[in-house]
């Protein structure tokens, strides 16, 4: 089965720090996604990448950037972390088009910004 891994399960950072969240998938998927999960709001898409070096903004991109230099790796960057970015971050991957109806999720990173 597809394996999606995230670099950390728990992370604590200070306000103003630059934060990198890493995601790696092992099934040669074209698409990769970053979501944040908050109680009562479900999952909201931050950024989406459909190919190496290609990205598309999701619903809540403000305060975030992404990088996809290799097909298997998709990084989420918080340029200057703020307390309102405390959340659970989920990475996912899928094949492209109709072959990618199913998204495969990583275990999540719970980020706390103090």
């Amino acid at each position: 089965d597809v394996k999606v891994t995230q670099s950390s399960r728990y992370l604590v950072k200070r306000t103003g720090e630059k934060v990198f969240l890493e995601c790696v998938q092992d099934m040669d998927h074209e698409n990769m996604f970053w979501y944040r999960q908050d109680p009562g709001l479900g999952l909201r898409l931050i950024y989406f990448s459909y190919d190496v070096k290609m990205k598309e903004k999701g619903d809540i991109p403000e305060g975030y950037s992404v990088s996809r230099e290799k097909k298997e790796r998709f990084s989420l960057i918080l340029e200057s972390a703020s307390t309102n970015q405390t959340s659970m971050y989920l990475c996912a991957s899928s094949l492209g088009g109709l072959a990618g109806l199913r998204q495969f999720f990583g275990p999540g990173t719970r980020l706390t910004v103090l």
Partner: protein
Amino acid sequence: AQTVTQSQPEMSVQEAETVTLSCTYDTSESDYYLFWYKQPPSRQMILVIRQEAYKQQNATENRFSVNFQKAAKSFSLKISDSQLGDAAMYFCAYREGEYGNKLVFGAGTILRVKS
């Protein structure tokens, strides 16, 4: 923009009984897909079941089935013979058809299973 609404923040069910989780959505598209994802405590989110909008027949996966009412824009999940392992957060999600890639999620429903 498409929206997905889950009006039940929490549900409880007795082991071996049946429970139905509700989901409604709003879209002007005719070609789309609907999903239920399960997120067990401290474990990865997995796909439970999928429904294509063009199919009239409701999808079924073992103990999990859906009631898809396209005109009403309703997509409920029925879990039969509930088991302790069914306890999780359940998310309803929507995706546009052929050229869509992104999922729109509801807020989620926590399902508790009592023994």
